[in-house]
């Protein structure tokens, strides 16, 4: 018996006249890590943002953990509790110290009491290696630390699935490693993860399934050894050769 946690079918999304997603089908099993790669403008971030309905699809259906998020009658706030999201630009609440960033949604949304929320928060801060930073303001942290706080904030809601929207793209190269290490550990702990990324090495090592998107469609999908190691489609080959050999310019 398969245990499908995210299921996307026939997903279309347009911004005005610009069609960004042209019929996406996708299934993610519980505990799987799915990496979505592709050139910029291919629609990968939009796909991810449709999964928790930050973008509203024009047609198609998305079901996450039993909630059909595309159903207008669903309690979307409730559905989102189970879907953690990590953004490219961290989006920590800049007026709140780290600890409050981690507890505010636990208290206001899950109605946990202060002591329990703080216990959960401290445990998640420990997981991302930031014990001792609970009183800091987001602006006092490096980008890598901010992103790890953002991961801990999402984890504090005990999500069933985590979405990562280019989590390392805004970071200085030397800070990327810390964030990827946290994500690796999360994958090892069995978290279901959808990751939009340009980190091919990470995708190769951690992903169960790699999706290559271009022009609003899934061009190729499969295990990383095949999609990254031995791509079948020309578009995938071109993209990968550009990403893996950035200094090389072909005609």
């Amino acid at each position, binding site marked *: 018996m398969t245990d499908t946690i995210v299921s996307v079918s026939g997903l279309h999304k347009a911004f005005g006249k610009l069609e960004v997603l042209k019929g996406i089908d996708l299934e993610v099993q519980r505990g799987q890590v799915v990496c979505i790669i592709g050139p910029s403008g291919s629609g990968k971030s939009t796909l991810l943002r449709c999964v928790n309905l*930050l973008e509203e699809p024009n047609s198609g259906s998305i079901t996450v953990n039993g909630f059909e998020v595309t159903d207008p009658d669903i309690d979307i706030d409730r559905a989102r509790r189970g879907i953690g999201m990590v*953004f490219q630009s961290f989006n920590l*609440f800049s007026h709140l110290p780290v600890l409050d960033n981690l507890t505010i*949604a636990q208290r206001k949304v*899950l109605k946990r009491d202060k002591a329990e929320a703080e216990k959960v928060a401290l445990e998640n801060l420990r997981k991302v290696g930031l014990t001792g930073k609970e009183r800091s303001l987001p602006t006092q*942290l490096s980008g890598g630390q901010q992103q790890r706080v953002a991961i801990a904030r999402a984890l504090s809601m005990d999500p069933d699935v985590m979405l990562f929207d280019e989590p390392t793209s805004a970071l200085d190269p030397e800070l990327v490693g810390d964030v990827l290490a946290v994500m690796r550990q999360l994958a090892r702990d069995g978290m279901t993860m959808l990751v939009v990324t340009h980190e091919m090495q990470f995708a190769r090592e951690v992903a169960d399934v790699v999706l290559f998107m271009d022009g609003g469609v899934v061009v190729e999908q499969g295990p990383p050894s095949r999609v990254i190691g031995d791509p079948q489609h020309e578009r995938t080959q071109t993209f990968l050769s550009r990403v893996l050999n950035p200094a090389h310019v072909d005609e």
Partner: protein
Amino acid sequence: MAMSRRKRAQAFRGAQYALLVIVILVLAFVADWGEIQRAFFNVDAARAQFPGVITTALVNTIVYTALGFAFGLAVGLVLALMKLSSVGPYRWIATVYIEFFRGVPALLVFITLGFGVPLAFGLKFDIYSTVMLSLGLVGSAYIAETIRAGIQAVPAGQREAARSLGMSQGRAMVSIVIPQAFRIILPPLTNELILLTKDSSLVYLLGLARDEYELTKFGREGLNATGSLTPILLAGLCYLIITIPLGYLSRYLERRTGRKSERGLEVEA
């Protein structure tokens, strides 16, 4: 003969100083200093103003302004949210309100509320309610626009992060967006408070009892009693006691928020 660049700059600066000295000298000789001293610096007239100018007038000005500002802030927040609402009529009502009260002199609002409303509806407010309503209604139109700008200045990612954690739209607004918006607009909001402090001088229109006098009215009464302009000068100085610290506060807040975001960028970069 062509002058060097440095010579030209020196000559230009010299001319500016010369002009300044001439203006000061002319004023010094033309003005009747004896008369000015009698009119504005009459020690006896000044002494007669105390302690009332502080204990009554300054205190009342502050109380009227505080009442108006508190009411204006509450109404302004509601108007700002209406202006950002997805419900069309809310937006229209807020727009009409803001355009109206921003475009009409505060003086007319005071007259309308002070005399028109009691006549029209048989309602009679006490002085504090009337002041709160009229100053608040005028102030709220400006404050609403400031708050709206502040809410829109909060990055969209903040709201998205809040929503993705399962917060409802209202919860995200109250817990995440509005607190950040107020940080952004603290300096312009302080300026609104300064403007309102000065507008509180219009309260005299409502007809005040002696212990309800604010600074301007108190100064004018002093002028009538003593025939000296000294009480007016004194009232002006009292306004500055309120507004100058507020101005400094505004600039301090501006510097602080500015520095904070710079520091943020520095760490991020």
